[in-house]
C-alpha cells in the first residue's frame, strides 16, 4: 500500500458506514469534509474573533479579521452586562420544560395517529399539520390574551406550556412510528399485551433516534426563539438568555463585540446538548429504523 493508502486506512473510525472501495476513499472524503467545514466555519470564527476586539476596532472601516489587541475581558464584561447566570437558569428551565412536555405528549399522541383507528383521525391530523403553516406573528396576540386571563404572565408556566404543544413533534413521531412493522405489535397483542404495553415495550425502545431528534430540535429551536419569551417575561426572574442577548442592541447602537461574546457563550449549552444526544443518533438499529426493513 502506498503512503496515501495507509493514511486512508488510518483515518477509518468505528462510527458509520464503511467507505469501502479504494483505500484512498477516506482521504477524499476527509478532504471534502475539511473544505466544507472550513467554509461553514468562516463566519463563526469571525464572530468569535470579533468578541475579542475593542469597540473602536469593531467599528473600523474596513473591518479587520484578526484582532489588533486581544480583549478576553469582553467575555466577562458580556456576562456581567446583565444577570446572565439567572438568564441561563431560566433558559434551561423553560427549554427543558418545553422539551420534556412536548416529547412525552407528542409520543403518546403520535402513537394514536399512527396505530389507532378512530373517527376523524385523519381530519384531526390535518388540523395539526395546518397549524404549522400559520406564522407566530399573528397567533402571538390571541395566545397572550389567553395567558393573561390565566394570570400566567411573567411566569415559568406561561413560558413553557403554550409553546409545548406545537404540531411538529406529533408530525415527526407519527411519521417514524408508521415505519415500524406491525408484526412486532401483533405478536405482543396476541400474547395479551394492552395498547399501552405495546407502546411502552415495543415502540418506544425502537424510537431512540426519533425521540432524540425531536428532543434536540425542540431544545435548539426554543433556546433561540425570541418572540414569545419577549412578550411573556417581564422580570429577571423569568427572562431567558435569548431575550437577555438583546441587551447589547441599544437604542443608539450595538455593542457588537460584547454581543458576539455573549452569543458565543450562549451557543455552548446547545452544542453540549447536541454532542450529548449524538449517542442516540449514532446507534445502529438492526431492525426497522427510519424507512425500511
Amino acid at each position, binding site marked *: 500500500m502506498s503512503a496515501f493508502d495507509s493514511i486512508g486506512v488510518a483515518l477509518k473510525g468505528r462510527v458509520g458506514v464503511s467507505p469501502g472501495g479504494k483505500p484512498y476513499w477516506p482521504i477524499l472524503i476527509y478532504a471534502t469534509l475539511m473544505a466544507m467545514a472550513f467554509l461553514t466555519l468562516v463566519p463563526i470564527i469571525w464572530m468569535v474573533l470579533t468578541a475579542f476586539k475593542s*469597540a473602536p476596532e469593531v*467599528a473600523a472601516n*474596513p473591518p479587520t479579521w484578526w484582532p489588533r489587541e486581544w480583549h478576553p475581558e469582553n467575555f466577562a464584561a458580556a456576562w456581567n452586562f446583565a444577570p446572565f447566570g439567572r438568564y441561563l437558569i431560566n433558559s434551561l428551565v423553560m427549554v427543558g420544560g418545553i422539551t420534556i412536555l412536548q416529547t412525552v405528549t407528542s409520543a403518546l399522541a403520535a402513537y394514536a395517529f399512527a396505530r389507532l383507528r378512530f373517527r376523524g383521525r385523519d381530519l384531526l391530523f390535518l388540523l395539526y399539520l395546518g397549524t404549522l403553516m400559520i406564522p407566530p406573528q399573528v397567533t402571538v396576540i390571541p395566545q397572550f390574551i389567553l395567558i393573561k386571563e390565566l394570570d400566567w404572565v411573567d411566569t415559568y408556566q406561561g413560558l413553557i406550556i403554550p409553546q409545548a404543544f406545537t404540531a411538529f413533534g406529533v408530525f415527526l413521531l407519527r411519521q417514524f412510528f408508521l415505519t415500524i412493522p406491525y408484526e412486532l405489535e401483533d405478536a405482543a397483542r396476541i400474547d395479551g399485551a394492552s395498547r399501552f404495553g405495546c407502546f411502552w415495550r415495543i415502540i418506544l425502545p425502537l424510537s431512540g433516534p426519533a425521540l432524540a431528534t425531536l428532543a434536540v430540535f425542540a431544545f435548539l429551536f426554543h433556546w433561540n426563539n425570541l418572540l414569545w419569551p*419577549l412578550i411573556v417575561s417581564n422580570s429577571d426572574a423569568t427572562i431567558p438568555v435569548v431575550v437577555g442577548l438583546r441587551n447589547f442592541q441599544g437604542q*443608539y*447602537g450595538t455593542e457588537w463585540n460584547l454581543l458576539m461574546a455573549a452569543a458565543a457563550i450562549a451557543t455552548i449549552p446547545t452544542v453540549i446538548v447536541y454532542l450529548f444526544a449524538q449517542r442516540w443518533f449514532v446507534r445502529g438499529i438492526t431492525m426497522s429504523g427510519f424507512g425500511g426493513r
Partner: protein
Amino acid sequence: MNRRDFLRMSGAGLAGVGLLGVSACGGGGTSGALRWSMWSDTPEETRVWKSLAEDVHEKYPDITVKLETVTFADYWDKLTTQIASENEADIVAMQSLRMPGYAARGALQPLMPFIEDDSEFDVDDFFGPIRQGLSVNDELYALGYDIGPIILYYNKDLFGKAGVEPPPAETPMSWEEFREKAEQLTNPGAKEYGFVEQPVFDFMVPWLWSGGGDYMNAAQTECTLDSPESIGAMEFVIGMITDKIAAPVTDLANPSFAVEEFFGGKIGMHVDGPWQFINIRENSDFEWDVAPMPAGPAGSVTWAAGSGFGISNTTENADAAWTALKTITSTGSLKKLVKAGRGYPARESAVSTFEKPPPQNVDVVQKILVSDIGETRPFVTTTTWQETTVMLTRDFSPVFLGKQSVDAVVSKVKPQFDELLKEHQEILEQQS
C-alpha cells in the same frame, strides 16, 4: 421611527427648581403597587431608573414601583401586545415620535386634569418642544424626561488633516459652505468622505425644513414633499451621495449605520442628536465636536424630540401613578439622569453643565434647543406615523442608494402619504 431619543438628553440635570416638591397638598394619591415599563439597554441605565423608582418609595412608603425593562428595539412590540391585551404597566414610557399613534389609540390618559389639580406642579418648566412633542391635539399625555435637537457632528482630526476650517460653533454655516467643506474632506482613495447620511426619512427632515419645505402641511391633511423647496432640499442631500461626497449607503437595516460609519473615523461630518455623545466617546479614537445644522434657504432649522412617561388608560391606581410620575420626572430625578449622562433634560431647571467635554461646544446644544441659534421645532408626527415611516423607508431606499431620482420617488410616495394622512384625520375624529 426615530430611535434616537431625546430622552437620553434629559439626563442633563435640571437645575434644582424645586419641582421636586411633590407637596403634601398637591394632587396625587399616596399608596399603591405600580408597574413601570421603560426601555433600557445597559445595566447602568437600569440602575438609574431603579434608583428613581426607589426614590418614589422612600418619599411615599406606601407606593411601590416595580420597574420592567426591555431593550429599546423590543419595547414597542411588547408594549403593543400588552396594550392589545390590556396588560400594560401603570406608568408607560413613550417617545414623542410615537406619541400620536399610541395616544390617539387610547393607550394613555390626558395629564391636564392631574396638573390642574396640583397647585404645586409647574408644567412650564418643561421645554416647549417636549411638551408639544408629548401632546396630541393639544392634550398632554406624558411628562418628558429628555429632549434633544439634531445637530452636526464633525471629526476634528479629519478637518485638521485636510487643512479645512471646522464649522463655527455658534453660527450655522450655509449649505454652500457645508458642501464645500465636505468636498475638501472627501478622499476616495482613502475611502474618506465628507459626510454620511442615515438612510432613514427622519434624518431628512431637518434638511427639508432648512430648505423651506416640509413633509406635510400644518393642517396635517396633505403631503408637501412635492413642493419645490422640499424637492430642492432632498436633492441637495441626495446629490451629495450621488456626487460621492457622502459615503455610499451599504446597510439598510441598521438604525446606527451612519453613526457607526462616523465611529470608523473616515467621515467628516454627521447629523445626529446629543444622545450620541456617550457612544461616540466610547467608540471613536479621534477628536470631535458639534455645531448647528447648516443653514439652507430657510435658515438652520432642526427638529427636537424626546421621551417621557405617561399614565396608562387602564391603570387602577391613577392617583398613585401621578404621584410617582411627578417624582420620577422631578428636577432632582432628571439631574440624576444627567449625571448618568446621556441626554438633555426635558426641564429647563435641570440643565446644567453637561459632563466634561468632548464635545467642547456642548453649550451650543441648549442654545439650539431654545432657538437662540437657528430654529428648533418639535418633530410632529401623525397617528399613522409608524406605517408612514415603514412606507417612506421602503420607498426612499433606492434614492439613498442613488438609484432613483427624488422626483420619481416623491410622485410615488405622495399618494400613499396622503392616504395615510386621511386615515390619521379619521382616527383623530374618532377620538374627539
